[in-house]
Every structure is written in C-alpha cells, then in structure tokens.
C-alpha cells in the first residue's frame, strides 16, 4: 500500500508535467506571434524576440488598418460569415428535423442519400466544373451556396432531436398542431444549444476558409482575409529564395522590413475573434460533439 501511494505521487507528477508541457507547446507559439506583432519591425530583424516585445509599438496594427487589401479581405470575410453561417444552420436544421422523425416516408433512403456523400466525392476538378457550369466562379455566391449543407453537423443536430421526449410532440399533435408548428414552436426552441454549436462551427469555417477564395475567385474585391494572408505568407516564403528586388516588387505596397511584422499582425487580427468567441461556446460544443460521437 505504501509503495502504491509513492507510485501514485510519481504518477501524479508525471500527469501534471505532461499537461504543463501541452499547455506551453500550445500556447507559446501564439504568444510569440503576438509579441512579434507588437515589436518594431526594425528591431525584429535583429532577432531574439520571443517572450516579450523589446521595442513595443502598435505600428504594424496601424499599417494593417490602412492596408486596403487587408481591409477589403476582412470585409469579405465578415460578410460571408454573417450571411453564410445562419443560412447553413437553417438548411441543416430543416433537414435534421424531418430525418429525426421515425415515421418519415423513405427515411432510410433519405439518410443514405445524404450520408453517402461523406464517403465518396467527385474531387476538386469536377467540383470546379460544376461551379463553372452554374456560373458561380468569381461571384460571392461561391462562398455561401456550396457550404450550406454539411452532413456531419446535420447528424449531430438530428441525433439531438431524436433524443427529445416524444410525448411533447405527440400531445401537440393531439391538440391539432401541424408538423411546421411542432418544428418551429416546440423542436427549434429545445434544440437551441446544439444549433449554437453548429452555428459556431460553421461561422469559424467561414472565417477560416481561404481555398474557395483562392481557387474560385479572381477579382481582388472577392479575396477573403485568409486568402490575402496566404498572399502575404507566400511573399515571405519565397523571400529567401528570390532576389531582393523581386521581393520588393512583390510587396510593393508594403515596406520590405516591416512585411514580417505585418504578417504577424495580420495573423493576430485573423485569430483574435476566434480566441474571443470559442471559450464561451465551449460547453455547448463539447456536449454537441459528445452526443454525436456516442450515437454515430
């Protein structure tokens, strides 16, 4: 028993050491970016800035909020998040409710129709061709319409709805309520927590997406914040490889010295809203994910 208690202490020590390492490994890289974004560009070039800014300045943030490319990207991203996330939650919920009803005609077939798309897809090139055929290339709709539906989130919502007590619905039915009334007046209010979860996931998905903007839009006024970031990033990436003059030409609008700190500041601007939002919805999405995991 005594040996066990000693072993338990060693084990505990190991557990907390492990968790502290995880904490540091996750947190420090973000902290480093924040510090770099707050350090003056000239000073950063000298290197050695890690845990606190050596020459504190908000210059790079000032520059960012003057940079028309970044501002326009921010606007496109905000727009698609505000429009896209609620719409897709609507579409997903409107599907989840009928599929959660056990008496739906052809329920198995409908489920198969949607779930199959989780396991097989046409791939990028045919997808691009579909967008082209629908005349969606280089339009704002390419950000909204394809992401309306998401089978995985639909399953989470459906599973939650299936767990609601059946008696409420049946008594409403006896009182003469139609399917639509039951959906809007009874099921929707009870489903709010899981809708918040799916809404958060979809909103973050919109906020983070860059590939659709990168590959399917050419107009500069349709570039999302993340797509603009990719551009700044690639300027930096090739910076070491190509000549200084080319690099200057690439980032004509941005001072070559400060492009590094601009990159850090832009990264912070893109990260901050997420950092501020997700901890508050954490308890909902943990519950939502758990429910989805247990059932499917």
């Amino acid at each position, binding site marked *: 028993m005594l040996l066990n208690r000693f*072993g*338990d202490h060693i*084990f505990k020590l190991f*557990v907390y050491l*492990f*968790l502290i390492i*995880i*904490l540091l*490994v*996750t*947190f*420090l*890289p973000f902290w*480093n*970016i924040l510090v770099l974004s707050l350090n003056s560009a000239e000073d950063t070039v000298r290197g*050695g800035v890690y845990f606190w800014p050596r020459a504190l300045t908000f210059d790079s943030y000032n520059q960012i909020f003057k940079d028309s490319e970044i501002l326009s990207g921010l606007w496109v991203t905000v727009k698609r998040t505000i429009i896209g996330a609620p719409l897709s939650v609507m579409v997903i919920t*409107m*599907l989840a409710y*009928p599929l959660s009803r*056990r008496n*739906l*005609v052809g329920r198995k077939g*409908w489920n198969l129709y949607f779930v199959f*798309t989780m*396991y097989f*897809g*046409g*791939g*990028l*090139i*045919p997808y*691009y*061709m*579909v967008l082209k*055929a*629908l005349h969606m290339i280089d339009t704002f709709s390419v950000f909204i*319409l394809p992401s*309306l*539906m998401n089978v995985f989130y639909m399953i989470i919502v459906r599973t939650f709805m299936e767990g609601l007590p*059946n008696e409420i619905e049946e008594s409403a039915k006896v009182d003469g309520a*139609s*399917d*639509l009334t039951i959906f809007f007046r009874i099921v929707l209010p009870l489903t709010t927590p899981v809708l918040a979860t799916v809404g958060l996931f979809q909103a973050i998905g919109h*906020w*983070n997406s*860059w*590939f659709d903007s990168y*590959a399917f839009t050419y107009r500069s006024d349709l570039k999302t914040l*993340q797509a603009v*970031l*990719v551009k700044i990033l690639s300027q930096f990436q090739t910076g070491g490889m190509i000549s200084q003059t080319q690099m200057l030409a690439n980032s004509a609008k941005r001072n070559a010295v400060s492009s590094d700190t601009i*990159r*850090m500041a832009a*990264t912070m601007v893109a*990260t901050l809203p997420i950092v501020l939002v997700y901890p508050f919805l*954490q308890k909902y999405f*943990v519950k939502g*994910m*758990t429910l989805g995991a*247990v059932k499917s």
Partner: protein
Amino acid sequence: MQKASAIKATGGSSLFSRLREQKWLFLLMLPAFIATLLFSYGPMFGLYMAFTNYQPGGGTFFEQFFHAEFVGFKWFEYFFTTGDFYRVMRNTLATSLLTLFFGFPAPILLALMLNEARQGFFKRFVQTVSYLPHFISWVIAANIVITLLASDGMLNNLLVLLGIVKEPVAFLQNGPLFWWIIALSNMWKEMGFSAIMYLAAISAINPELYEAAKVDGASRFRQMWHITLPALRPTIVILGILAVGGILNAGFEQQYLLQNNTVLEYSEVIDIYAYKYGLQNSMFSYGAAVGMFKSVVAFILVVIVNRISRKVNDQALF
C-alpha cells in the same frame, strides 16, 4: 419501433395519404436536397470527364462536356506510367502514415492525462487552450509553424542554447523532414480537440469500477491501465476506422501552405498533384482522373476496414 407503428396506425395506412400528410416535412428537406444534389452529386457525375478528352473553349459548358472525345482509361494509364505516380503516392502514404503514427495516440494520451488531473481551474484551462489550434485556419497555423521553425525562430534558438545543434537547422528546406513537420504540426493542431471524444467515453465509465479497484489496492496507474483504457476501446476502434479510411487524405492545405521550392519533391501529395495539373495547368480530364483514383481507393478502404472491424470487434460505422 413501437412508437413508430403507433403513429403509422393513426396516420392512415396508404402511402399516398402519408406522403400528403408529410408534405411540409419534404418541403423542409428541399434546400438541403438540392444543395447536396448540386455540390455533392454534381461532381460525381462530372467524373465522366476523367474518361474523356475534355477541352475548354468553344460552345457552352454542356456542349464541351458532352461532346468531348471518349478515351476510356487513358488518363489513368497515363498517371500510373509516369514517374509521378510513384513520387506522389510515396509522399501521400509517408505523410499520412506519420500523421497517423503521431496524431492517433496523442489525443488518447491527452484524454487519459486530463482524466487523472483533479477537477478545477487548471484542468479546464489546459483543455480550453488545447482546443485553440483546432479553430484557427491552416493559413494561420502555417504562419505560426514557419515562424517557429525559421532559422532565427524560437525552436532553433532553444536548440542552439541547449547545445543540441551547433548551427540553426533549416527545418523547412529539408525534404524528408518536411513529412515529419506535417505530421507533428497536425498533431499539435488537432490533439486537444480530438481528445473530446475520448473524454466523453471516459465520463461514461461506471465509477463503481474504480471503487472496486481501489478496494483491491490498485494504483492510479493500474486503474488507468485496466479500467479506463479498455473502456475506450470502442471509441478507439471507430476513430481508427475513420483514420485508416482517410489514409489517402494526406491533406492539401498543410502541404500547400508550408511548402516552398526546395521541398516540392517531398510535399507534392495526391491532392496537390490533382490541383496542379487540373486547375493550374488546365489538364482538366487528367486532374479529374487523378482525383477519381483517390476517391475510389479511399472509399474501398473505408468499406474494407469497416468490414474487418465488424468481424473482429463487432464495431462498425455502417
């Protein structure tokens, strides 16, 4: 089941009357039905392109699509016979096997450790922070990784300081190292969030089991080993099926955003290859064929792994 039949009995028996009764339900499903038809099934039908010699230009899209010359498996043969196939598959498999090797056990370990920590602020804080990387885009994650691994970055300075290396290592300019960077950065990004599923499974364990083990004098470690870990088995199996099924999904974003000219030989996975030829070089039919090869193999893998697991473990996705 009983409830379903009860509703059926009161709702009229003929299919037609049930359909009419449920017209609102079908109306609710309509937007999702159309969106899936267009954006999920549309591309599946578009795979016809992979068997034709599609050439853009001249006429409407549909004319181009249906009048393209039928060439059978030409593009598939082309893919298999060029040296590209070997390289692309090597990169894809190497990346995803390494990703699996690091990324699969990590969340299990994290969940076990979190479970051993006392309930309280520290535990919740670790959990919240560990989710953060999941919610940022790969654009930002790549930015962070590049900053961290730069020759004057935090990691290199630490290594030099500790005397592990003499000169800063050019991490991102080293071909084979690139696979490890992808795998480890993927682990960093997803570990915390993936642990949710395991934590959920742990919370469902009957506490009496631990009580009994304590009475028998089992140490904390033995309790974890003999009670918690076995209880996680179903979850591990299910997530394992998903991981193996997605083995050709070595990723696109990580590689695309982290790569540079010096590591192209090692960073080109199947999805990037399809994108490069299909969209950037406008070889649409070829890109479609490469993408289709991937989808079909991935689908077959999921079905096989699922069947095996049903036989061996009685656990299956479908």
